[in-house]
């Protein structure tokens, strides 16, 4: 496949993207001079626990699009699909800390876990209170008995929303960690892709797939899922994903859920609404009520073709936090 991308030198793409991002959003965000870390303009915010996240680049609007009031304070920006180094995460922690401590939110990838973990130890050794919540919502990535091996995917958006809202309310670090972990525990996701993204650094597709095939349970770096099948209709594939997500928690009749249908990069909103329609039908059949719906591109894999379905079981506290207003760069809620 010929690589068609609007970039300059591949080795400069992250820097050039960040340069544009900071100018475009200069009322909301600033960049640390010493490290590739973006920070909420008014951080550290007095009286508030800092929320820090980060990971590899290529997931726009994640991670930096979630910087803002009611969401994330600082982001350590990695290279394409590669965890940010320890020093960078450490600088993000320092930039977000207003003396009430910092919560690290990260996906369950060995690179992220090691770099964030070592940065956490480094910051703690200097007297900063730091806790972390690791997202592992992808049901296709490992069986339920080995949940600690599951990848974190679009469910991380739910964590940012909930933890960010609670931090904005002035809650302490212990409380935010506890609620954040509950939100993660109540969240399940699964994705599908029919077309890989092309890595701009190497010019290679993130995985190989036949013209008429799709990968069920794909990860958002193009990691293989649980099976490869012929293309299915929107209803068929949505049913497959949704049932697997429902059965995993398991969600039950009478539950209330937040639904997140997330485009992985090049799947149209038109298609996603068709798929969401099927999610809503299935939930209705199960007697599960939709509390709130998020539709669109929340956590992509460059221009991968596909989507994911995320469900979070709500309780009263989570409902309040999900409904709270936020003012992120690419995630605004009134």
């Amino acid at each position, binding site marked *: 496949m010929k690589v068609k991308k609007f970039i300059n030198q591949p080795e400069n793409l992250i820097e050039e993207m960040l340069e544009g991002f900071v100018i475009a959003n200069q009322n909301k965000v600033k960049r640390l001079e010493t490290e590739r870390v973006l920070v909420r303009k008014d951080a550290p915010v007095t009286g508030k626990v800092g929320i820090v996240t980060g990971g590899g680049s290529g997931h726009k609007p994640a991670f930096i699009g979630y910087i803002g009031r009611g969401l994330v304070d600082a982001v350590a920006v990695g290279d394409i699909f590669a965890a940010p180094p320890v020093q960078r995460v450490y600088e993000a922690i320092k930039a977000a800390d207003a003396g009430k401590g910092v919560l690290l939110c990260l996906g369950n*990838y060995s690179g992220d876990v090691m770099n964030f973990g070592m940065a956490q130890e480094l910051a703690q050794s200097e007297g900063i209170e730091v806790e972390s919540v690791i997202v592992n919502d992808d049901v296709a990535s490992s069986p339920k008995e080995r949940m600690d091996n599951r990848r974190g995917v679009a469910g991380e958006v739910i964590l940012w929303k909930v933890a960010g809202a609670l931090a904005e309310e002035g809650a302490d670090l212990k409380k935010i960690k506890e609620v954040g972990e509950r939100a993660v525990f109540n969240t399940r996701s699964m994705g599908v892709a029919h077309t890989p993204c092309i*890595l701009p650094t190497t010019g290679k597709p993130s995985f190989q797939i036949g013209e008429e095939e799709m990968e069920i349970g794909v990860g958002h770096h193009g990691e293989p899922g649980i099976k490869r099948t012929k293309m299915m209709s929107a209803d068929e594939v949505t049913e497959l994903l949704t049932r697997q997500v429902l059965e995993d928690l398991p969600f039950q009749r009478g539950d209330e859920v937040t639904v997140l249908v997330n485009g992985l990069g090049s799947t149209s909103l038109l298609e996603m609404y068709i798929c969401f329609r099927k999610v809503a039908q299935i939930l209705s059949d199960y007697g599960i009520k939709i509390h709130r719906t998020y539709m669109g591109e929340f956590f992509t894999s460059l221009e991968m073709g596909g989507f994911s379905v995320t469900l979070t079981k709500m309780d009263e506290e989570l409902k309040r936090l999900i409904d709270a207003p936020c003012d992120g760069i690419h995630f605004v809620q009134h």
Partner: protein
Amino acid sequence: MSQSISIEKVKYALHKVVENLEKNRQYLNDLDSPIGDSDHGESVCNAFHKIQEIVDKFPEEKRDIGELLQAVGKSIVLSGGAAMGPLYGTAFMDAGKAVLGKEELTPADLVQMWEAFAGGIKRRGQVELGDKTMYDTIYPSFLALQKAYEEGKSLKEMLREAIEGAQEGMESTKDLVSKRGRSSRLGERSRGHIDPGAASSYFIIEAFFGSLIDN
């Protein structure tokens, strides 16, 4: 060939490691394509990118090989990123710690250093032999080095056997099912492919020990 290793030789060997990784960058990306996300060459080259500078700036008057290796490890940990930064960085830091204060490495020091290097990978990655990781290259290379030492072989033979052990270890990952990292989610589908981390470890060992033989 001398039966001990000077700090100059270690510096030279570290440069050769970076060179060898750069040379194999695309190959490592390609190995990573079927079981990962095609960027292992990028990650590992990024992680090692700064060490040439660290080596070159290490003061001439300082002779402590342990200190040099620790400085290299710290740089890789702090600025390496991906999974490679913490893993290789910890390995170099632990290796440095094991030979701290040494201005020359004897064959016994080398064995001790390499045991610590392997231990660093195991500790940071929480891996076991057979998990289909870099440890499957590094640990067998340590075993081969130790065995050659215990059999009283020359330093040259020790190094050569350590490289052979690494190569066999790397090749053994082809038939393994991954238990760690991104590829572990593939289960059986990871079989049939050499682990990219095991391969980068081989290139590090090939260059590091290889340059000590030649030099």
